[in-house]
């Protein structure tokens, strides 16, 4: 969930009233926001870098507000204020309009076919006669950053470039070139670099290095030129220094390059709907033309208003309320969804503005009606769904499912290739290389972490392991196991054996060969030949046990597991010092 930081006093000024922290918290809760933290720049710096660094920093109070991940229209002060004011009925939602330039042709961005290999889409627009202040400027930059981090998926889907239009001249060309052929002075640098040089320069940049991978391996890099060959930007990495925005900038050219054109349109709409407020004609945006390599021309920003029709009965039924059509239209209007009863039955016509890209289905409209009604005002009812309860025989355990390869293989004196283990491709630590194929390592590690406890230690676990299995759609399956370990000054094989007997007694399996269960000395030679068992025995193997101290468990003639005294090498590898006997068996047949 993205967090937006706004200056409290600035927020209250824009909202036209003040709130206590509690009141504002309450308002946020109702509106689906969360007042996450009340802080100041000073406090943040002092927390992150120490008190000494914080002296002199501003102690203006900041509200950190958590915004739902799909509400891009609330990612800046301007949007938050607009949303809350409309919600509180103190403002009518503005109408955003795309206009043609008052004189001359619209700005043109021409896409060349070379971009297809790296970043094929672009959209653009112009904010005309805008007035920046320091706060507006900061918010403008901050919104780009928030969009980049969220909907733009760290610039991989969309990258935004904003430029002082008066420093450049169209038509603009969006093309892609080999990095050696691109050369310009990037933002906040004093000299020109080739794209190749830039990539190595930014390797150590704490911010930009995260975006390099998006184009690094491509033969050509995206680049936008003006008609004089000035570089506007090399998306998605950096803008040119030449066209940078300042507080004095009057006319802003916005371009978004993308791999996902739908998202690019949304991002551009967000940028212009939020900041056209500060244009001489508020909420108007000057169109720009984008020409694709096939000659097709598109006008942006789209600023599309979509109309949906639904019935108030639908809303009432889904939410569980009983409100009039007019009342529901009012509720929706408070969510920036201008609505009215059409007069045809209980039909409501809802207009979805370009700021609400999150509304993609009638259920989204229904949710907004519920929010405006107040979730906590909805009567709580009991569904009359009649069902009969049923349970799956199941256990779960507290040992971790993931572990290192070593745990399930080398430490148990076997090869990883013998284990049928499922491998994880992106573990952050060695503890997450594989899903366990045996419960034994978890129990032995638990004993190692609890060596201070009085002896004997008797642990058991009934839980799932994961094994590769080609017959399943995902190529793997869970298998339920029972594992027990006895750790004492003497191996206590009889204790573990006794546990097996008791378990079988409870499972109503008699101690007889054939129909019941029995154990017999495991055959090391056969185990080495690898053709011992009908049951795919992927957990404790013969080599895990002390020679001559390992027995195989047979139930109704089938091998289901092993028990015995652990091999001293295995004991040592788990940093244990006492003899230890163990049992592990498959219990799927008993479920």
């Amino acid at each position, binding site marked *: 969930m993205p967090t937006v930081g706004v200056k409290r006093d600035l927020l209250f000024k824009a909202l036209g009233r003040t709130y206590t922290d509690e009141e504002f918290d309450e308002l946020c809760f109702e509106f689906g926001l969360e007042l996450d933290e009340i802080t100041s720049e000073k406090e943040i710096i002092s927390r992150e870098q120490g008190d000494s660094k914080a002296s002199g920093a501003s102690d203006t109070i900041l509200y950190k507000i958590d915004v739902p991940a799909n509400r891009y229209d609330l990612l800046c002060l301007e949007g938050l204020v607009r949303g809350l004011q409309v919600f509180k009925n103190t403002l009518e939602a503005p109408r955003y309009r795309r206009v043609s330039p008052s004189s001359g042709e619209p700005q043109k961005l021409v896409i060349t076919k070379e971009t297809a290999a790296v970043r094929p889409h672009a959209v653009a627009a112009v904010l005309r006669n805008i007035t920046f202040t320091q706060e507006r400027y900061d918010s403008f930059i901050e919104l780009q950053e928030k969009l980049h981090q969220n909907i733009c998926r760290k610039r991989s889907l969309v990258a935004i470039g904003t430029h002082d239009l008066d420093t450049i001249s169209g038509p603009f060309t969006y093309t892609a070139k080999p990095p050696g052929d691109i050369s310009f002075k990037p933002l906040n640098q004093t000299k020109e670099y080739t794209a190749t040089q830039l990539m190595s320069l930014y390797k150590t940049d704490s911010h930009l290095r995260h975006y390099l991978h998006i184009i690094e391996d491509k033969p050509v890099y995206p680049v936008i030129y003006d008609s004089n060959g000035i570089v506007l930007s090399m998306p998605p990495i950096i803008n040119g220094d030449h066209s940078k925005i300042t507080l004095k900038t009057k006319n802003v050219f916005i371009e978004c390059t993308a791999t996902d054109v*739908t998202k690019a349109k949304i991002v551009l709409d967000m940028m212009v709907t939020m900041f056209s407020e500060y244009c001489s004609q508020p909420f108007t945006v000057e169109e720009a033309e984008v020409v694709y390599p096939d000659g097709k021309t598109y006008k942006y920003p789209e600023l599309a208003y979509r109309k949906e029709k639904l019935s108030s009965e639908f809303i009432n039924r889904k939410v569980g309320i009983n409100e009039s059509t007019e009342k529901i239209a009012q509720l929706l209007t408070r969510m920036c969804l201008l609505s009215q009863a059409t007069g045809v039955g209980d039909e409501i016509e809802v207009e979805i503005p370009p700021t609400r890209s999150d509304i*993609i289905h009638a259920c989204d409209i229904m949710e907004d009606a519920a929010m405006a009604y107040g979730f906590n005002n*909805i009567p709580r009812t009991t569904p009359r769904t009649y069902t009969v*309860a049923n349970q799956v025989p199941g256990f779960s355990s507290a040992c971790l499912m993931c572990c290192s390869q070593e745990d399930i293989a080398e430490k148990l004196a076997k090869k990883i290739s013998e284990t049928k283990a499922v491998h994880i491709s992106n573990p952050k630590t060695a503890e997450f290389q594989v899903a366990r194929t045996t419960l034994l390592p978890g129990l032995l590690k638990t004993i190692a972490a609890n060596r201070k406890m009085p002896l004997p230690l008797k642990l058991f676990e009934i839980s799932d392991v994961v094994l590769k299995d080609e017959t399943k759609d995902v190529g793997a399956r869970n298998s339920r196991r029972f594992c027990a370990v006895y750790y004492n000054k003497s191996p206590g094989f009889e204790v573990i054996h006794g546990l097996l007997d008791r378990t079988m007694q409870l499972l109503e399996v008699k101690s007889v060969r054939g129909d019941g269960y029995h154990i017999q000395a495991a055959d090391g030679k056969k185990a080495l030949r690898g053709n011992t068992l009908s049951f795919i025995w992927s957990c404790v193997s013969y080599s895990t046990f002390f020679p001559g101290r390992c027995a195989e468990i047979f139930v109704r003639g089938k091998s289901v597991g092993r028990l015995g005294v652990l091999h001293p090498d295995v004991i040592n590898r788990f940093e244990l010092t006492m003899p230890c006997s163990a049992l592990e068996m498959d219990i799927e047949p008993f479920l």
Partner: protein
Amino acid sequence: NWVMADTGVVETLLRLIEKVDDGVDSLEVAASLGVDHQVIVGAVKSLQALGDIISAELRSSKHWELTEEGTEIAEQGSHEARVFSSIPLEGLAQSELMKLSFGKIGFSKAMSNKWIRVDKSHEGGPRIFKTVESIDDQVREKLLLVKKANTAQLEEKEKNELKKRKLLSEVTVKSYWISKGISFSTTITKQETELTPEMVANGSWKEKKFKPYNFEAMGVAPDCGHLHPLMKVRTQFRQIFLEMGFTEMPTNNFIESSFWNFDSLFQPQQHPARDQHDTFFLSDPALAHEFPQDYLERVKKVHSEGGFGSQGYKYDWKIEEAQKNILRTHTTAVSARMLYKLAQQKFTPVKYFSIDRVFRNETLDATHLAEFHQIEGVVADYGLTLGDLMGILHQFFTKLGITKLRFKPAYNPYTEPSMEVFSYHEGLKKWVEVGNSGVFRPEMLLPMGLPEDVSVIAWGLSLERPTMIKYGINNIRELVGHKVNLQMVYDSPICRLES
């Protein structure tokens, strides 16, 4: 650290006490018997264990003792006296004297006592001569007095002076003042620790004395199994679901395809949760190979083009993304499979639940693990409302002892509306989040083939969080994984969530 007194010492001690009117000091007894004091202490302890035969009062007394150097002087004389006696009539070269171990210290003391003189102008270097015929080695005399425990004859000033010279030290000695007890006797009967079958059979218990029990001590822990607290809380949650008529879903498939974990839930392929940083992907088996083909086509369509009343996400949906195998990130993947299965038959309302493991590629800390347990409840029926979801959540949480609930609008890719569930925490005096809930989106349900007027409401919470709160555990690693504290497992009480 004391040795069991042998019977001889015990009997001698008892006879000594019998003779005196008041009592004896254990130190004196040790001195008079010529045994180590610890032997007497041992005898006292074993007599005490037999009851009130003797009474022993612990005392501490200070007394003076010779240091190592003091002992040497008491035996061989003071350094100055030894200097004096080592000088022959014809005198001794100073250099020769200084070679002796006591030479240096003894020389200056003997000089200040005016027992000796130095002839510096003597040919062959300075030479030392006696100035008196005989001396009185008072230091040695005093130390001998201390050694014979006649310290009383010394003045305080003298003792302190010797202490300053590190010849004496004051030590605290612990001893027992031993006197006759209420049931004093010089013959001891051995006390029995326990009643034996023989005693019962032959009646000998009548003549025996029994050692009293120590009722202050802890009993021996019963030999029984212990369930992990997480399992106890899990059992409780299961019970609640079963009481509410929910059927448990089979959750024994930790490996899941991205298709069932994300795509079927209308979670777009660019969603951050599908990032390498958030989800464990598999390298082997890397891909799932089997999907219900027509359903997959409908999922693809709803993502990329929309349909079922939806605008869709309008992006290029790729089968390659859907095939990627992962460790499931939520049990909702199981719910998706169950709902799909349900949609393939004539619809009947269902209530499902599951409690099982899920996996997130998280950076680990005190409250986050890469594996945890998710509790999930799902109800599918005709005409369910948002009010129904709140009502059922109210019932569920009431069974947990949580009655004050409120709901915050939230965002979740597969539910709409989505609500975070908050409960009022009496201890913290604030609202805390206890779970998440919502109504599954039509874009998830309709491609499965569920009837249009069926709604599915669902909620989820983690098992670890309530368990940590219930058992007062602050670090999740003490609860889950092999670093679990077994003592905590042994000690934790029965789980009754409402208490």
